[in-house]
């Protein structure tokens, strides 16, 4: 996917002025946030689970090579194949190779953000393989040729009306007058369209929420059951996963699963949790003939041992997006690449470079709500600040900002001089603003006064007034 993160400001401006998008985003506050709150309130040990989840991931990341090798050995023992891929291109080639080996013409796909990261759909289509998204949200945006705007609710930027219009346009073989007003009718229609595709697919590709070292299994969770049809009906099942998805044991996966659904959708558990271990065995009733895992690094191992390592604990629950005031103002597309919101603001510069994604870690008030809801206790604001530090170190921060901070810091390190400057400024603005009490516009303060008034200072700094009071001996 071509990144447009450099244009974040313009993207955000357009998003803020798009009333349909704004209506669609209205659901975040009432939907996700409220449901998560209720789910967390209903589980007294939630805080303890967060600590456990964090410890599991920290331990795994500290011993990542060991667990990955153990996991790989167990995948092979179960009859599966592992393809180690350093880059997106290697992963695409590995997938194409598997498809070509079985003469595949179409591929059903469960939801996978990694597939977005490696821009798989366009690549497959170029090579004559039809990708079919089977998650309802992904299906809708595939019809519209749009990227997802949210990591678990890819079509959250759309209203029900948008979906109806999309179906009427693309399902043109169906009767024009059919009723589609109810969400249920939309779901049924998508299901009917997808059924044929499921049966015709040669290869099914899913993501993975976990890779389990002790068993060589992969685990996915869905609410639609589409993942199960995707991975059991075709001859070949490809799991596309990034390497930090590994956990030591099934027990560990179970611990984190208890956090995942509550943090994501406010459910106690997702509707379907599916564990896959190798291809179909003779005694199995169903399952694929081949089981492959395409394991992607794509810059993640370079984050190990840096101030960004904690980000690799992320379980993609989306709680940080759902509670982010910036995300809920501008939506996911404004971020300009695969991962939006706070987790994207940290991860994206790591994956595509801070030169490309510099806006993302800056477009935050550091309100800290993301960190407070993150089930893995990832210090998101702190890591965004680290990206800002890297920008300053490399001279990437805007010159005006660097100068401004430099001048301010020069004064702030000199109390007497600073006091003088403050006295002059507060005195002047205090006098000018006395009658109205505020400024509707002010030279050099357009960033502030374009959107809000600037309250006038009372006039006279605290330090001066305090000193005067002390001189008079009054307290």
């Amino acid at each position, binding site marked *: 996917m071509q990144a447009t993160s450099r244009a974040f400001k313009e993207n955000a401006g357009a998003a803020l002025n798009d009333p349909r998008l704004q209506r669609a985003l209205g659901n975040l506050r009432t939907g996700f946030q409220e449901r998560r709150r209720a789910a967390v309130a209903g589980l007294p040990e939630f805080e303890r689970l967060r600590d456990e989840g964090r410890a599991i991931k920290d331990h795994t990341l500290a011993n990542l090579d060991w667990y990955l090798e153990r996991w790989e050995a167990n995948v092979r023992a179960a009859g599966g194949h592992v393809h180690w891929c350093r880059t997106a291109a290697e992963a695409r080639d590995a997938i194409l190779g598997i498809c070509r080996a079985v003469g595949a013409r179409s591929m059903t796909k469960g939801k996978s953000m990694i597939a977005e990261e490696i821009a798989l759909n366009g690549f497959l289509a170029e090579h004559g393989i039809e990708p079919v998204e089977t998650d309802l949200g992904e299906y809708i945006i595939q019809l519209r040729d749009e990227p997802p705007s949210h990591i678990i609710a890819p079509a959250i930027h759309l209203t029900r009306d948008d979906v109806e219009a999309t179906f009427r346009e693309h399902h043109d073989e169906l009767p024009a007058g059919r009723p589609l007003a109810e969400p249920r009718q939309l779901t049924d229609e998508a299901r009917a369209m997808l059924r044929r595709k499921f049966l015709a697919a040669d290869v099914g590709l899913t993501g993975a929420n976990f890779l389990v070292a002790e068993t060589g299994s992969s685990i996915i969770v869905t609410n639609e059951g589409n993942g199960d049809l995707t991975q059991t009906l075709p001859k070949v099942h490809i799991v596309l996963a990034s390497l930090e998805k590994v956990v030591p044991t099934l027990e560990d996966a179970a611990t984190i699963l208890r956090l995942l659904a509550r943090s994501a959708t406010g459910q106690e558990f997702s509707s379907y949790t599916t564990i896959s271990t190798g291809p179909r065995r003779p005694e199995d009733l169903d399952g694929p003939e081949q089981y492959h895992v395409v394991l992607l690094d794509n810059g993640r191992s370079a984050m190990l041992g840096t101030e960004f390592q904690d980000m690799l604990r992320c379980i993609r629950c989306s709680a940080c997006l759902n509670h982010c005031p910036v995300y809920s103002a501008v939506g996911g597309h404004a971020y300009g690449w695969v991962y939006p919101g706070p987790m994207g603001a940290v991860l994206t510069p790591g994956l595509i470079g801070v030169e490309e994604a510099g806006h993302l870690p800056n477009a935050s008030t550091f309100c800290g709500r993301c960190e*407070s809801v993150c089930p893995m206790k990832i210090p998101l604001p702190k890591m965004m600040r680290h990206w800002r530090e890297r920008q300053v170190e490399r001279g990437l921060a805007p010159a005006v900002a660097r100068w401004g901070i430099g001048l*301010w810091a020069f004064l702030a390190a000199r109390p007497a001089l600073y006091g003088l400057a403050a006295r002059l400024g507060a005195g002047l603005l205090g006098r000018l603003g006395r009658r109205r009490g505020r400024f509707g516009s002010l030279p050099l303060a357009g960033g502030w006064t374009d959107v809000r008034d600037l309250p006038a200072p009372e006039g006279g700094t605290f330090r001066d007034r305090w000193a005067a009071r002390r001189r008079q001996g009054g307290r």
Partner: protein
Amino acid sequence: MDAPASRPTCRVGLFVTCLVDFFRPTVGFAAVKLLEAAGCTVIVPPQTCCGQPAYNSGDRAAARRVARGVLDAFADVDYVVAPSGSCAGMLREHYPELFADEPEVALAAQRLAKRSWELVSFLVDVRGMTRVDARFAGTVTYHDSCSGLRELGVKEQPRTLLAGVQGLSLAELPGAEICCGFGGTFCVKYPAISDRMVTDKAEDVRATGAGTLLAGDMGCLLNIAGKLSRLGAPVAVRHVAEVLADMADGPPIGAPGRG
């Protein structure tokens, strides 16, 4: 005010904060009054800013230069108290991290961090204050500023003390824990997004029907007051310390001055 007699007196260095110093000295005097009522001796060392603007802009070197001044100025007080959760959070949560690779300074930073408090939580949690001697006729609503709330756990303390202000009633603000969109330099770097956030906040404030909005941080207060006045909403805006110190008789933030 009931200064708990059992508590030993203490020397508090008031960290005025640059915004209070510049925009609203009244808040500084209100803080002094409250601290003295809580049995503290207040001193005001020479000071400027906590360094947060540089720190959050990624300029650690500049932030350190400014922060060193704070470490020196407040080296020999029992407590450092700021009428701001944001600045107190900087001193308490971020100074140790800022100097993590300079062990000697880090030690001083850790010592300062342990002694640094946001004003209202200091009064309640450290000095055991349970009520104030103040009157305020009217309904207020309260915005929980992000740093105070999430870094320092300031939530109940202001409500506890406000409950004792005669004549005051509190109408809780829906979404009180959602950021107002100030965010330091964020509000001028991303004005369109900030505008959207502060507009939502102002509308939520207006919908409570309260005549006055209170909060504990000047950054948020200037932002919300500026938006409320731009929208023509008749809501007065004040720092919570003004009300608690019974010093809310002057013009509110952004209102015409006297005389």
